[in-house]
């Protein structure tokens, strides 16, 4: 990176960090630059990657592309108040397609695959394996089962059912705790990365 670029990057980096103290003009400046530059960045990328490469260059080979273009055009009709409601057609198209695609995908990948994966023996052949293994497997199977009970909507969480639901939410909380702990470490390394930039690339204090 050239000299000016590094100073600019350092200026903006510190501007963002100043937000941790309080909202201030330096942060507002960094924020405004970020919004303007990044919005422009994505328009350009969308234009070249989606419009130019996917549509313009291929427009004669694939008639389906014109469906997208036509729907995109209808979307723009929102700018004309009288017929703006036509913009709902492309939205309806996207709603239907997203719903159809996701519904089938999640049925297979979430429900069927995960259910099948939980079907497992609690013990090894002829009572082999330790009590510890048995308990661990019970936690896995029982935790999944109780977790499903927690999400059950049709019955009040009371009595034995309520107890199972409580075990379910505890299991889910252990999962969240595990993910939380796991992520904390990786987030700390991000900070180290930025400190490294400031001290090594900008100030040259680290070699």
């Amino acid at each position, binding site marked *: 990176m050239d000299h000016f670029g590094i100073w600019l990057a350092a200026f903006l980096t510190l501007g*963002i960090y100043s*937000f941790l103290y309080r*909202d201030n003009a330096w*942060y507002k400046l*960094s*924020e405004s630059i*970020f*919004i303007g530059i*990044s*919005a422009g*960045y*994505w328009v350009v990328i*969308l234009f070249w990657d989606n419009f130019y490469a996917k549509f313009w260059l291929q427009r004669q080979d694939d008639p389906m592309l014109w469906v997208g273009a036509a729907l995109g055009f209808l*979307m723009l009709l*929102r700018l004309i108040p009288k017929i703006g409601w036509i*913009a*709902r057609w492309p*939205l309806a198209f*996207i*709603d239907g*397609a*997203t*719903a159809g695609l*996701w*519904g089938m995908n999640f*049925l*297979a*990948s979430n*429900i*069927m*695959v995960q*259910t*099948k994966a*939980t*079907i*497992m*023996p*609690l*013990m*090894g*052949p002829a*009572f082999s394996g330790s009590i510890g293994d048995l308990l661990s497997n019970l936690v896995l*199977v029982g935790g999944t*089962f109780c977790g*499903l*009970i927690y*999400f*059950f*909507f*049709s*019955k009040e*969480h009371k009595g034995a059912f309520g107890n199972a639901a409580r075990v379910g939410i505890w299991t*889910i*909380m252990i*999962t*969240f*705790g595990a*993910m*939380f702990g796991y*992520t904390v470490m990786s987030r700390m390394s991000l900070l180290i990365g930025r400190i490294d930039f400031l001290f090594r690339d900008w100030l040259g204090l680290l070699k």
Partner: protein
Amino acid sequence: MSLSQRKSFSVFPAIQFIIIIALTFVLSVNSFAQEATDDTTSVTSVIIAPPTNLLVEDFEYDDGEKLNLIWTPSIDDQPQVGKVTGYQVFRVTNDDVTTKIAELMPGANNFTDQELDKDSTYSYYVTAIANGAEASSVTTSPISPQREWVNFGLTNLFVIALIIGGAIFYFIEMGKRGKKLFVRKIAGLEAVDDAIGRATEMGRPILYIPGIHDMDDVQTLASLTILGRVAEQIADYDIKIRMPVARSLVMTAARETIKASYQAAGRPDAYSDDMVSYITDEQFGYVAAVDGIMVREKPATVFLLGAFFAESLILAETGNHVGAIQIAGTARPAQLPFFIAACDFTLIGEELFAASAYLSNEPKALGALKGQDVGKIIAAAAIIAGVLLETVIQLTDSESAATLLGYLRQAFTT
């Protein structure tokens, strides 16, 4: 193959091979005319066996555009020896054009040729490559890929879709016919009324963040359906709603949604396009802006509902810092712990999708939640039955249990 044969096949040629490579190298360096990669190199004394039993079959359940190739690797293709350095697959079309279609690693024994034309015929041969030698299998007889109209490989998926989808459909119909359907209280959603009421009392705006994904994510669609319900109440109470978004399409859809809600609440004049504003598609640029909005406008209530990634915690912590009541929800399990730590109420996964139905309190929408529960019963029952059967099999070797288990596993295979 006997041990002695194996020896004569592997060790000696390897030494020869090294000597030849060394010689080739010396020669090529000495004569400028010859390039190291020249295919015409006259080294032929390395002999390798070709791949055998090459079989070409139609790819099952496709639109007639794929063929499966399977073969037995060259007997000289053994990990310890490393004589075969890879395979090349060649396709011969009906007009006799031969094309190399793949280069594969040693040990490869199958390949799927794609994007074919079902009205043409194709033959194939596979060549084993060694440094300085190659050996080809026989060329297969011509075959055309077949189009199958129905994918019978997905019968299980079809049946499960029919059962779960059917259950949801059935209960929606029940709801339409006016049958009373009970759905338990969901804490995070019970809090929505209070959260909106708080904004009214404080006279501060409500901030609604629909996640950072576009309309091709069902979480965003779920968020907009919730927005529809929430906006109706907002219209009733005459509170300011602020909705910065990261996608242009979401902006358009959100405007239509809020507008429809204001119309339904009988206050179409109070609606303004300015309620929803586009910021930037960039994840962290968007976060920088939303953080700024939070500290400057100090919303009383923040909704964080939709697809969230690393920004979840930055947004939720800033919202917490400015003292907003926060109701969050996502189907991204990795972000849920952060919402739980920093928000007042969190909709966990499935609850996000149930929210709009719950808030609407319309019998047909609640019916869909009942239908979901049928899915849960099926999954839970399958897990318990499967685990019991597996354990019985481990303990008793029961054949009938094994047969039953086989059926059960098959039913959940996609």
